[in-house]
């Protein structure tokens, strides 16, 4: 008689224990919760003094398959139209290579005082172009690599020229800079995931190192932000992005250009306007 009673009691105790455990787990719930967040990023530049932005043009070089000056101006203007509060000025794209060449010809042409007519004209207030000190570097007509761009840097330091441009467009924020878009190839070992099936027909993905010849492009833009009221550079930033494809793959240069610019545009925009970056995080109890 005692045996069945004890068994009944122990079953009840076990049941009660299970109920308490279940209640405890329910009360505690999960220990972590995935939650979407939006991180606001403040702009790097205070653009409040400006109502308008002029994407003037770029000193561009590299492959001849893409007009990097024209494409960059068009892309940045369209992005700024939709993603910034500044009004975008539609103006002819400045041929900055020609302008810089002209400025250099004038300064190295036996005159100490630079001529301004060809590059924007004098201000009429006796203020000449301000060229940085140092020897005059020859400007290469064709820009093939990074060192070809270096002599053009002095163009961005020419405050009188940019001030003149600013006056023409009612003192906007001026966006200019350099863009180098060059073909690139690389060979070496690459790790790729490959599907394999074992003797039972089960699929597995294993990393395999293979030697590959790849080709693609490197995009190196430098964005220079100039205060149109003073002609002075207020901010600049340089980037480098590259993309590589199988040697057999024939991707048009323009597609690669846009793919690489797509990666950089958020960074460019974050200089001018606040951005919200979506993501998820894990809250813990």
């Amino acid at each position, binding site marked *: 008689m005692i045996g069945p009673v004890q068994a009944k*009691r122990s079953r009840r105790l076990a049941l*009660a224990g299970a109920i308490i455990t279940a209640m405890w787990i329910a*009360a505690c719930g999960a220990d972590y919760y995935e*939650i979407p*967040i939006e991180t606001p990023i403040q702009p790097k530049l205070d653009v409040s003094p400006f109502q308008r932005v002029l994407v003037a043009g770029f000193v561009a070089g590299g492959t001849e398959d893409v007009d990097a000056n024209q494409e960059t101006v068009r892309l940045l203007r369209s992005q700024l139209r939709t993603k910034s509060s500044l009004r975008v000025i539609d103006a002819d794209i400045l041929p900055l290579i020609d302008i810089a060449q002209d400025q250099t010809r004038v300064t190295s042409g036996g005159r100490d005082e630079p001529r301004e007519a060809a590059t924007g004209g004098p201000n009429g207030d006796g203020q000449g172009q301000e060229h940085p000190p140092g020897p005059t570097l020859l400007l290469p007509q064709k820009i093939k690599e990074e060192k070809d761009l270096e002599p053009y840097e002095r163009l961005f330091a020419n405050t009188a020229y940019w001030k003149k441009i600013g006056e023409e467009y009612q003192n906007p924020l001026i966006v200019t800079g350099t863009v180098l878009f060059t073909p690139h190839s690389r060979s070496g070992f690459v790790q790729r995931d490959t599907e394999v099936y074992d003797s039972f027909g089960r699929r597995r993905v294993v990393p395999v190192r293979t030697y590959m010849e790849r080709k693609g492009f490197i995009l190196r833009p430098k964005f220079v932000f100039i205060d149109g009221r003073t002609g002075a550079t207020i901010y600049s930033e340089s*980037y480098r992005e590259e993309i590589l494809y199988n040697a057999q793959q024939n991707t048009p240069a323009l597609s690669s250009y846009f793919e690489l610019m797509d990666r950089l545009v958020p*960074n460019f925009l974050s200089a001018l306007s606040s951005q919200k970056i979506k993501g998820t995080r894990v*809250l813990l*109890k």
Partner: protein
Amino acid sequence: MNIRLAIPLVVIAVGIASPSFADARTEAKAQVAFGINVAQRGLWREAIYRWERAVEIDPTYAAAYNDLAIAYEHEGQLDKARRAYEKALELDPNNTQVRQNYELFKEINDRTGSSKEKP
């Protein structure tokens, strides 16, 4: 119900509900849970208040610092977020979820300079 079964049940129930049982961690946990609840409804300021209370009550509670960091991040208070993540990791260095949150935060926070060329 058998009295032998009822007694331990009552003891456990009273124990859970009793304020005397609620130490700092329990109180902080309640604040954290409430914060999670309101954050899921988009009330991030209220969540910040709750999680700030939680770390005040129990300054050794890593999860509260983690949650606070996420809320600061959402509100754009990135310096505060970084400090809170670092505190959470200091308290619980092996917590992979806190570390993952922090890595994602750093990626976004440093984003503007992510592909920037070093001078």
